[in-house]
């Protein structure tokens, strides 16, 4: 019953998660969800292996043939017909295609390394073919990342539901916005490259040379960069964010802010996070108590069970062997005593440490038996202690299981709803104002000319409001803490002063009592005489 609220929150979270998932899928162009990418990757790996194997076999066969040719009487025969023969044979076995699907065959080792032909009909060498396949893998893997991100979101959400750990809900949120990142980031880098590479030409060559080629050419050479860009755009599928509301570059300063798709999505995602946080809290507050109760009840039951088994075994032993079996028999005792005495005698007659060792080894042998006996004795005694405790202290079972520590369902529900409601409303208002810094500038009377400047029209203008506001909260917290600490110190000082005063009073009282006693002592002889 106590966990009903937790289940309700989990269901709401699941519904919200599904809605967000649909939102993400719809927001991106359909090519983002191409499951065939996985097969393309596998195909490319297969191709790379084929190319490699072809190169290896052809290379080693030709090399072996060359070596053999020098040592043979028929070297002219090898020279003229060995290589074509090898390639004819290999071309029969291998069926290789390039990226455009054309059949690739080679007739000489030279062709394998360098390729042949010109223009669009050119057949590239093995190296180029492998490079092309690597690009394919990269491109298809990039495409696959979208699906992986969604799978990760689902996986982390399920983990969260199972473990109620806030960590998984954070991963889930990051995975949900992951596809947007993946769609935007490569093109952001390309744009950055476009901006940077031509601007640093001249110095970049020197940098490239100085680095001994450790900086890739594409990063410093405009020609190489543009070639890289062409390759990149050929092989990496471009995924677009089709829902324009996710590409907001201007923020609406009116009520349309609340209806904008991107804003609503961000808000819903935050709401999901908040829900998972609250769910996690309820789990953390209620779960330990439930688990503790379960564990303790299990332990107590097990203890009783083991204890009765031990008692039964002992009773059976007594019945079978008589009461004496519980104690070491007189004969055995005498035997042990004799053995001990002989060991001591040996020791004192000069055998030295060997006697000690023997005695210790003997003890070691008995150790295991003693340990088992100790465990069973401890179990029995603990069981009887528990029984006695439960008889004397009626509340003991309740405190051991901490059953009373679980918060009431009513309080938990009301506090969660109030807390969450307040947080969400406050956050929404705060974000609205921070995202629209102009509103705050107007409120704080910033000059219109400054408000109209280009800098304040950019999204970065948010920083001017977000930084002070974010710092405001810890600052306020710090102030409150300092005030509380000061008050606490004052209270402590007051208490200290009071206790010092009381101590002084008691010291004075003691002195007074002593003086009175002394006076009385001196008065007594006078009065008696």
């Amino acid at each position: 019953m106590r966990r009903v609220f937790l289940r309700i929150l989990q269901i709401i979270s699941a519904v919200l998660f599904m809605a967000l998932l649909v939102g993400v899928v719809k927001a991106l162009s359909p090519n983002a969800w191409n499951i065939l990418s996985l097969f393309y990757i596998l195909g490319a790996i297969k191709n790379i292996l084929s190319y490699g194997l072809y190169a290896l076999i052809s290379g080693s066969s030709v090399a072996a043939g060359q070596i053999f040719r020098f040592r043979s009487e028929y070297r002219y025969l090898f020279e003229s017909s060995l290589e074509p023969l090898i390639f004819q044979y290999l071309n029969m076995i291998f069926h290789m295609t390039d990226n455009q699907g054309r059949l690739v065959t080679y007739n000489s080792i030279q062709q394998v390394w360098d390729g042949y032909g010109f223009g669009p009909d050119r057949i590239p060498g093995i190296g180029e073919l492998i490079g092309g396949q690597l690009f394919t893998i990269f491109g298809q893997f990039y495409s696959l990342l979208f699906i992986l991100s969604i799978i990760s979101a689902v996986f982390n959400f399920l983990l969260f539901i199972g473990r109620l750990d806030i960590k998984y809900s954070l991963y889930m949120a990051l995975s949900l916005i992951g596809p947007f990142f993946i769609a935007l980031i490569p093109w952001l880098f390309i744009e950055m490259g476009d901006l940077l590479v031509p601007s640093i030409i001249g110095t970049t060559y020197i940098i490239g040379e100085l680095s001994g080629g450790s900086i890739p050419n594409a990063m410093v050479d405009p020609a190489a960069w543009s070639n890289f860009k062409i390759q990149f755009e050929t092989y990496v599928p471009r995924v677009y964010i089709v829902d324009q509301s996710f590409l907001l570059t201007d923020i609406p300063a009116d009520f349309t802010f609340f209806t904008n798709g991107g804003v609503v999505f961000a808000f819903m995602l935050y709401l999901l996070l908040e829900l998972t946080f609250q769910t996690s809290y309820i789990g953390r507050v209620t779960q330990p108590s439930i688990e503790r109760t379960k564990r303790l009840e299990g332990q107590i039951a097990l203890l009783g069970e083991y204890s009765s088994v031990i008692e039964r075994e002992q009773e059976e032993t007594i019945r079978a062997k008589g009461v004496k079996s519980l104690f070491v028999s007189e004969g055995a005792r005498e035997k042990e005593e004799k053995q001990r005495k002989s060991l001591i005698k040996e020791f004192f007659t000069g055998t030295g440490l060997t006697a000690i060792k023997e005695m210790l080894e003997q003890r070691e042998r008995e150790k295991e038996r003693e340990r088992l006996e100790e465990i069973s004795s401890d179990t029995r005694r603990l069981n009887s202690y528990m029984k006695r405790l439960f008889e004397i202290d009626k509340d003991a079972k309740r405190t051991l299981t901490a059953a009373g520590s679980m918060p009431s369902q009513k309080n938990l529900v009301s506090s969660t709803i109030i807390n969450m409601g307040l947080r969400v409303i406050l956050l929404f208002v705060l974000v609205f104002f921070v995202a629209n810094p102009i509103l705050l500038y107007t409120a704080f009377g910033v000059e219109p000319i400054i408000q109209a400047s280009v800098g304040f029209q950019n999204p970065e203008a948010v920083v001017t409001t977000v930084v002070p506001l974010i710092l405001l909260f810890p600052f306020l917290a710090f102030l409150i803490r300092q005030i509380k600490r000061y008050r606490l110190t004052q209270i402590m000082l007051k208490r200290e002063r009071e206790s010092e005063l009381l101590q002084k009073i008691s010291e004075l009282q003691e002195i007074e009592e002593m003086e009175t006693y002394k006076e009385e002592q001196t008065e007594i002889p006078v009065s008696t005489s």
Partner: protein
Amino acid sequence: MLAKRGTLLVMTGVFILTAGFSFQNYFFIILGLFVIFSSVISLPLFDLNINVENLRVRRSLDKNKVFQDDFIHIVVEIKNVGRKRFDFVDIVDNFPEDYFSCVIGEPYISTRIDPKQTVRFSYILKPMIRGEFFLGPIEINVKDRLEFNNEARELPDTYTQLIIYPPYSDLRKLDALRGRSLGKMFGVHRSVQVGTGTDFHAIREYQFGDEFRKINWKATARLGKFMVKEYSQEKNMNVLLVLDASSTMGAGALLNTKLEYSIRAIIVLTKLALDHRDLVGAAIFQNNPKRPDDPQKGVTLLDTKRGNQVLFNVLDFIATTRSMGPKSLSIWMDALIKRLRKRHLIILLSDLESTIEDLRIMFTKARTRGHELIVISPFSPWFEVFGKEFSAAERAIAEAISEEMMQHILEAQSVARSYGISIVSVGPDDIIARAIQEYLKAKHKGKAQI
């Protein structure tokens, strides 16, 4: 302060916000703002609402003194006396884990405490070694409901003293054996003084000088000669159990030291002597390095008494003893003897790792006032070698030391013999049995009777 989780959330928010700036995209900016603000927004509210001082924590134990093989039920009670709730509180009750094991329950709790609510949890500890220990402190970690902010504190004055007596198992064995092998000896070894008292002892033939009122006429008529009734009185002893608690007694594995076994032997002897209606007392020989000008010269004495409470007095007296300081047996004995007004049977438990001259003076001091002294001497190698693996060199050294110690004990025994004092060299296996034997022997011989 922002907790780990709060910091993680802020970092995530900053990352998303930065991405928003890079992409010139308000979707990311707004999401980043939500995430960042959600983690810091509750900071001031948390500090405003949380007053750890409003949490009153109390620890109670079902007993403050317990035997080593017994159990203790510890209840921790937390009450929120304030008007604000604590959304999430972790409370950990610390205990010395090297010396106690938690057998049932858990010494911590994570919960929420509403205003005026009281939360209780408990656990059961089993002590592993005797001594004086302190449970505590209690640590509190107050968090906000989303665990973004926290305040951890160690509560002051949350230590509870706990005294662990040596194991009761030895006494239990003593009880179990009574009526069996040891029981036979109990009756035989009563020291009696025949001729005085009121307990009937026997009927014997009349001898010149016997009082007429003691003549038993029935027996006289039956046997045809004068027979008299003889009465006896059981005589008691003042038994003083002395423990040498100098540093050498503490050598060896934690539960296998000479001191531990000596204490166990003393407890058993106390019980046995009390059962024999002797007066029992105890003394500890120890030079505390922190008190160089000790007026008692390192001797702490618990006067001999009789009664049910004595066992617990001895337990209290001896349970918290730890080995420390150098040995000065002759000075200790001198100081002790000066404080004893009557004849005592002194049973000293010491490894006698002192010079022969020092031992000689000690024996002289003990005997000059007519006290009887029995020395139960735990032989160091039997205790210290236990459970250790030696290399060839270590083995040779250990053997040499053992030989030397053996020579020392033999010499001490020979010196003691000349004073009529017996030194019994014992190991961990037989220390208790030998101590019992020596006590019963002394009792039988009627040594140091009052």
